[in-house]
C-alpha cells in the first residue's frame, strides 16, 4: 500500500519534469575540463531523474565511455545510450572518461542527493544522513523537492533539518535567521558543529544572536542526551554487575562460601556459548540467529555441573572455614583458567551477536540504545525474578533459607543439609554461567574473562549486604550508575579507583553493607 503510493508519487514527479536528462547535459557532464563539468552537473541536478541517477552511477563506476563525440554507457559487451537507454552498435574504439578526485566528490554527493528519491526508506534515510554533513545551498532545490514528496514523517523531519543546515550558509540574512530558529529544535551533535562554524563566520549581529541562541538550545538538549546516555550505560553496567553478583550472592551471601572461582564459572558459561555457536554454525546454519536461546540453558548447565563437581570434591570439606575456602577456590580458578587455555587456546575466541541483537533504538540525536544492552538488562531482570522466586517461593528456596539461618535445626527438621548445599551451590554456579553467556555478547571471551569481574562482584555483594538479594540489586545498579557518571567526569580508570575507594570507605562506616542482617550474634 505504502509502496504503491510512493510509486505513484515518483511517477508523477518524473512526469512533471518532462524535460529530463538531455543529450547536451550528458555531453557537458562527461566531456570538458573539470570546472565546466562540475558546473554542468550542478545545472542538471534540479531537473534530475532516474536516468540522471543511472548515468551518474555509471560515471562513478567508470562505465561511461567516449566514442568520438558520442557518450555511451558500456554494460558488459553492450553499449547503451544514456538518454534513451536504447542499445547502440558497439564502436571499435572506446575512450575512458577521466574523473579526477574533485569530480568524483561532486558525483558522489550528487548521487547521494538523488538517493533522496529512492523508493527504499532505508536508502533515503542514509542519503539524508550523508547530506547532513555536506549540505550547502547548491543542493537546496533537490532537498526542497524531496521534502515536498517525502511521506515518511521521520525522514521528513530530518530532511527539514538538512534544509535548514543548507540555508544556514545562504547569502540571504532572513533565510539564515529562519534556519537558525529551525535548527534550535535539533538535538544532533553535527548540528552543533555546524552552528559553531556559522557563529565564527557570521557578521550580522542579529543573526549571530539567533545562531547563539540556537546553539545554546542544541547544547542543552545534547547535554540531556549525554546525561541520559550515561544513565543508560550506568544501568547497563549495573545489570551486568547484577548478573555477575547474583550467583555470588547465593554462594557467598547465603552459603558463606568465598568462591574466588566464580569468575571462572562465568568463563565456562561464556565458552559454553561459544561451543553452542560452533555447533549451530556447523549443523544448523539456517537457525544460526537463534543459537543464543539454546546457549542460555547450556551455559547454565555447564557451570552448574562444574559447581556440583567443585562442591562435592572440595568445598564440602571446607564449610565454616571461609579463609581456607578462599584459597582453595583461588586454586580452582587457576586450574580452570589453565584448562580452558589448554582446550581452547590462550587467545580470545569470537562470539558473534545474532542479527536480532545488533542495531539499536535511536531515542535522541546523540542517544541510541543498542539492542544487546537492552536485552541484557531484560535478561538480568528475568534472572533476578527467577532467583527471587526460587528463593522465596519454592521448597528448595525454603530449605536454602532454613539451612542458612540455622543449620542444626534445619537438619533436625529432616532437611538433608548436604544435598541442599550442593543444590544451592549449583544454582549459584549456574547463574554465573548465565552471566558468562550474557558477557559473551558484550565483551571478549577469553581465559581471563572472569578475572576482570571477580573484584567487582565481591564489591557488589559486600556493599549490598551479605545474605540479601535486594541489597545486591541496589548495590549493582548504584555502583553501575556511579561508575558511569564518574567516568564521564574523570575518565574510566580514575572512576574505577574512585569507586573502589568509595566502597572501602563505605565498608568502614557500615561493615554489614547497605542492608544489614539483624541478629544478636556477638560475632557480627
Amino acid at each position, binding site marked *: 500500500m505504502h509502496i504503491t503510493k510512493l510509486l505513484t508519487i515518483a511517477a508523477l514527479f518524473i512526469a512533471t519534469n518532462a524535460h529530463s536528462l538531455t543529450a547536451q547535459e550528458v555531453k557537458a557532464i562527461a566531456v570538458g575540463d573539470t570546472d565546466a563539468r562540475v558546473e554542468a552537473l550542478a545545472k542538471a541536478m534540479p531537473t534530475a531523474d532516474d536516468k540522471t541517477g543511472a548515468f551518474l552511477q555509471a560515471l562513478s563506476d567508470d562505465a561511461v565511455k567516449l566514442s568520438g563525440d558520442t557518450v555511451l554507457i558500456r554494460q558488459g559487451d553492450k553499449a547503451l545510450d544514456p538518454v534513451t537507454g536504447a542499445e547502440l552498435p558497439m564502436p571499435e574504439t572506446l575512450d575512458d572518461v577521466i574523473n579526477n578526485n574533485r569530480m568524483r566528490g561532486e558525483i558522489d554527493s550528487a548521487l547521494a542527493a538523488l538517493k533522496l528519491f529512492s523508493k527504499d526508506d532505508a536508502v533515503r534515510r542514509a542519503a539524508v544522513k550523508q547530506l547532513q554533513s555536506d549540505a550547502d545551498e547548491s543542493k537546496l532545490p533537490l532537498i526542497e523537492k524531496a521534502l515536498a514528496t517525502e511521506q515518511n514523517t521521520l525522514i521528513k523531519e530530518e530532511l527539514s533539518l538538512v534544509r535548514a543546515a543548507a540555508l544556514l550558509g545562504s547569502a540571504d540574512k532572513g533565510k539564515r535567521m529562519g534556519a537558525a530558529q529551525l535548527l534550535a529544535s535539533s538535538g544532533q551533535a553535527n548540528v552543533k558543529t555546524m552552528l559553531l562554524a556559522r557563529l565564527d563566520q557570521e557578521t550580522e549581529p542579529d543573526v549571530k544572536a539567533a545562531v547563539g541562541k540556537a546553539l545554546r538550545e542544541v547544547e542543552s538538549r545534547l547535554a540531556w542526551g549525554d546525561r541520559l546516555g550515561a544513565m543508560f550505560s550506568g544501568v547497563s553496567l549495573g545489570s551486568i554487575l547484577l548478573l555477575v553478583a547474583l550467583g555470588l550472592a547465593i554462594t557467598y551471601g547465603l552459603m558463606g562460601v*568465598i568462591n574466588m572461582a566464580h569468575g571462572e564459572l562465568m568463563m565456562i558459561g561464556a565458552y559454553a556459548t561459544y561451543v553452542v555457536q560452533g555447533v549451530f554454525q556447523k549443523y544448523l546454519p539456517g537457525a544460526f540467529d537463534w543459537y543464543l536461546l539454546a546457549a542460555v540453558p547450556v551455559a547454565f548447565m555447564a557451570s552448574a555441573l562444574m559447581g556440583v563437581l567443585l562442591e562435592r570434591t572440595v568445598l564440602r570439606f571446607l564449610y565454616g572455614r571461609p*579463609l581456607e575456602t578462599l584459597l582453595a577456590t583461588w*586454586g580452582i580458578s*587457576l586450574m580452570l583458567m589453565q584448562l580452558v587455555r589448554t582446550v581452547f587456546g590462550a587467545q580470545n575466541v569470537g562470539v558473534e551477536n545474532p542479527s536480532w541483537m545488533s542495531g539499536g533504538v535511536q531515542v535522541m540525536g546523540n542517544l541510541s540504545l543498542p539492542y544487546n544492552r537492552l536485552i541484557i538488562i531484560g535478561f538480568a531482570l528475568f534472572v533476578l525474578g527467577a532467583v527471587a522466586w526460587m528463593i522465596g517461593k519454592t521448597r528448595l528456596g525454603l530449605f536454602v533459607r532454613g539451612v542458612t539461618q540455622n543449620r542444626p535445626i534445619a537438619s533436625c527438621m529432616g532437611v538433608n543439609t548436604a544435598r541442599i548445599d550442593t543444590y544451592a551451590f549449583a544454582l549459584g554456579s549456574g547463574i554465573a554461567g548465565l552471566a558468562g553467556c550474557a558477557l559473551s555478547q558484550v565483551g571478549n571471551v577469553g581465559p581471563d574473562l572472569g578475572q576482570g569481574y571477580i*573484584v567487582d562482584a565481591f564489591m557488589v555483594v*559486600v556493599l549490598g549486604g551479605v545474605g540479601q538479594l535486594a541489597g545486591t540489586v541496589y548495590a549493582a545498579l548504584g555502583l553501575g550508575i556511579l561508575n558511569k557518571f564518574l567516568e564521564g567526569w574523570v575518565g574510566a*580508570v580514575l572512576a574505577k579507583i574512585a569507586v573502589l575507594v568509595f566502597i572501602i*570507605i563505605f565498608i568502614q*562506616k557500615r*561493615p554489614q553493607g547497605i542492608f544489614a542482617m539483624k541478629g544478636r550474634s556477638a560475632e557480627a
Partner: protein
Amino acid sequence: MNSLVSNHSSQPAGAAVDTSALQLPAVCPLLSRAGWVTFLVALIVVCAVAPVLNLWVPEGSVFHLSDYGVGLLGRIMCYAICALAMDLIWGFTGILSLGHGLFFALGGYVMGMYLMRQIGTDGNYKSNLPDFMVFLDWKELPWHWSLSHSFAATLFLIVAVPGLIAFVFGYFAFRSRIKGVYFSIITQAMTFAAMLLFFRNETGFGGNNGFTDFKRIAGIAIATPSMRMTLFVMTGITLLGFFLMARWLVRSKFGRVLQAVRDAETRVMFSGYNPLGYKLTIWTLSAMMCGVAGALYVPQVGIINPGEMSPANSIEIAIWAAVGGRATLIGPVLGAFIVSGAKSWLTVAYPEFWLYFLGALFIGVTLYLPDGVVGLVKRVWRSKATKAGDKA
C-alpha cells in the same frame, strides 16, 4: 616501629592482666640449642659459603654457584620475608591480607625511584630526569620525587611509606571491626585500586613499564658480580634478622595477645583488652617488612612495575605461608622456597603445568595440610616416636 610498640605497652588495657593471680606459662628461650646452631649455620651459609662458591670457586666446578642461582635464591629470600610478614598477620593474628603485594611493591617503588635518580644523565635521553618523564615531556620532577635523590631518605621511606599506608588503612578497618573475609576482600580492592593508579602515566611512576634499566646504587655499578653478592648477603641477613625479631615478638606477651585475638577475639575484648592497638601494630609492622623485602627485590631483578600489585601476587604470598605451615615461623620461609623454587623450575620445564600445579597446591594444602609442610613433618615424627615407644 619502635614507637608503635612502646605506644602499646603503655595502654592501660595491656597492663591489667599482670596483676592477676593466674600463672602465665613459662617463657621459652628465643631459640632452642639446635635452633641457634641451625641459625648460625644459615648465617654462615649466606655470608660466607655462598659468596665463596659464587665468586671464588671456578665456573666449571660442581660447587660453583651460578649467577642465575644467586639471583634466584636472592629473589626467593625476598619472598620469604613477605611470607614471614604474612605469617605474623595471618598465622598469628588470624587476619588474612590479600593486599601485601601492595606493600611489597611500594617498598620496591621507593627503591626504584632512588635507582632511577642514580641513573643520572646516562639514560637514553641524556637528561637529568628519568627517561619516561622526558618521554612524557615533563620539565621537572613531581613533588613525590623530591626525596628520591637521597639514599638515607630512601631507606627511611622504604619502611615509612608502606607503614603509613598500612597504618591509615588498618586504623579505619580495625576500628570499625572489619574482620575475616571482609577484611581480605577490601585489602584486595585496595591493591587492585593501587595497581590501576600506578598503571597511569600521570601518577609519575612510569606507567605500565614501571622503572627499569638501573645503572648503579649508591654510586656503585649495579650489574657487577660483587654487587649482586652484596645484595644477596644483605637480603639473607635481613631475612634472618626478621626471623629472630618475629620469634621474639610471638613469644612475648604481645605475641600471646595476638594469638588470643586470632583464637577468640570477642573473649579478648571481654577480658578488657582493646585488640585495635595489637592488630594495628602487627599489621603495620608486617607491611613494613614487606616494604623492605620489595626494596631488596628491585635492585636484584632490575625492574619494578604495577604488575607486582596485582591481586594474584598477594594471594601467592598467602599460599607460601599456607604451604609451609601457618603459625610456625620456619614454615612460611620454607613455603616460599618450596613454591617459588617449584615455580622457577616448572615454568621453564613444563610451562603449561605450572598453573595446574599451583592450583592443586592451593586445594591440596587447604584440604589435607592445614598445618602445612611443617605440620606434616611434625606428624610423621610424632607417629615415629610413638611407634618407637610401642616397641620399647
